[in-house]
């Protein structure tokens, strides 16, 4: 209810952002219904131009580009979403544990996170993927683990502030266990900053997956995914064919949408008037 109230007061830019995200989700959810062909079916010549049969032309081995874009939305968004959820599950539980238990649990977890955060995620991920190889489940676990360090930092900091409140102290004196404290006292009060962070992390993970696939180290063909589609079709650009720009633009489109929303969310949360 309060969500709609908030939406009515929202600036145009946030509404545009929301519309952009909804369009992507619709494309992802309805892909099998809308798509004129199947995901891996070769239906024409190589790099055919746009026409009524092939709305966005065909790709480097003659598959329908529009169909691949829809399935790409499905795969890329779904995988990025799963990774972000997993990363939040790991990050929040470790962060809350560190904040409520304190002591050596906090010390060890925090030092480990410091080390993992000392270098870029991409470099770490490349080293790890070289060792373990890259199937989709491995990719999901590796990126979620690396990304959860950021979630850990935030949820630990937020939980530290809530931990010292009287109501937590009261619950503790009442004899509630640590699980109860985390679920009923800390989590509901830590939710607003974590929700904004979810948007940012999703953007980051989504771009990261796209970048890895573009480097040929993420989701492997023939599964359609936007980053990989840019890579496969990159040769076309030198012939003046813009096929690889479509999936790249789609990636940009979704992240711009999410960023518009998050920007507004942070603005509202920070309580600034101007």
């Amino acid at each position: 209810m309060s969500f709609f109230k908030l939406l009515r007061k929202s600036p145009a830019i946030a509404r545009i952002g929301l519309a952009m995200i909804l369009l992507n989700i619709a494309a992802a959810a309805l892909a099998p219904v809308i798509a004129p062909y199947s995901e891996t079916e070769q239906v024409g010549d190589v790099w055919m131009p746009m026409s009524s049969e092939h709305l966005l032309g065909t790709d480097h081995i003659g598959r329908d580009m529009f169909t691949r874009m829809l399935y790409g939305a499905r795969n890329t968004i779904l995988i990025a979403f799963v990774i972000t959820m997993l990363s939040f599950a790991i990050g929040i539980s470790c962060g809350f544990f560190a904040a409520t238990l304190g002591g050596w649990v906090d010390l060890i977890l925090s030092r480990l996170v410091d080390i993992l955060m000392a270098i870029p995620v991409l470099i770490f991920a490349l080293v790890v993927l070289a060792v373990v190889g890259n199937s989709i489940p491995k990719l999901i676990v590796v990126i979620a683990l690396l990304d959860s360090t950021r979630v850990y930092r935030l949820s630990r900091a937020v939980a530290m502030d809530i931990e010292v409140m009287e109501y937590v102290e009261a619950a503790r004196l009442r004899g509630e266990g640590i699980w109860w404290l985390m679920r009923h006292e800390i989590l509901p009060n830590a939710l607003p900053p974590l929700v904004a962070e979810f948007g940012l992390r999703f953007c980051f993970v989504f771009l990261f997956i796209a970048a890895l696939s573009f480097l040929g180290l993420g989701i492997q063909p023939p599964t359609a995914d936007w980053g990989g589609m840019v890579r496969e079709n990159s040769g076309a650009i030198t012939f003046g064919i813009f096929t690889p720009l479509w999936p790249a633009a789609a990636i940009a489109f979704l992240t711009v949408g999410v960023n518009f929303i998050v920007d507004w969310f942070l603005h509202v949360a920070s309580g600034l008037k101007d």
Partner: protein
Amino acid sequence: MDNVYGLILKRIGLGILTLFAISIIFFMGVEALPGDLAEEILGQNALPETVAAFRKELKLDLPPHERYIAWLGDLMKGDMGKSLANGRPVADLVGWRFANTLFLAISAAVIAVPIAILLGIIAALYRNSLFDRIISMATLSTISFPEFFVAYILIALLSVQLIIFPSISNINAQMSFWEKIYAIVLPCLTLTLVVVAHMMRQTRAAIINILASPFIEMARLKGIQRTRVIVMHAFPNALSPVINVIALNLAYLVVGVVIVEVVFVYPGLGQLMVDSVSKRDIPVVQACGLIFASVYIGLNLTADVLSIISNPRLRNPR
């Protein structure tokens, strides 16, 4: 001043310790595999003799801590081991490519830093003006674009439509300095655009943060001229956050360079690392990873030391 030296030494020590910990993680990552690396790379149907020979070549028959110490010792002497793919010493593969990567990153930084800082300061001083709004929209969009999207747009415009710059940036030692610069115009421009967007937003935020603090309001209320407030009161305090912003983004450049190098087939360290990951050439990947990590940690360390030095409050403790 003792206080400051102490802080700086502590920070440097911490940096070295972090790098050490990362080298352990990189090296020991191989240990976490079920089975071992030899089986993993050769596949399930490899002959037991082949696996045993390969294991010996990788020194997997020794216990992990001995291997780590031997590896670290070799590394200190500049010996980074041999590539699994072609048996050449890793140092030979890495050396000149690293120089190329630095060349590209430094060229981008030289252009990006002054532009971004200037735009950031102007946007902060004239907050909520038309200029500020336009530039905020533009940068918010640019940071949402993947690097390769920016790169392909530039290729489509400047290399395919208007045939001005090459879309493949191959450079070699025979080329003169200006030929090299011409070859890297597009990758350099891509990196510049992305970094300027990030850096400008952060500079703007940092300056606005300073301008909102009570001592600036106090100075204004005393009736001091606007330029004097900015130069004498805001600038010294803004220095430390701005230095941090620069270092953070130069460090970001280290990563951005990987993707841009792949797009433009530029013979740099990032390209080598990506190729080696897909070939699973572990020694080369470890070496590249360690170099990127050292540069990244080194930049952050420099930023911290500089901001300790430039912070008036730390320099003159009560």
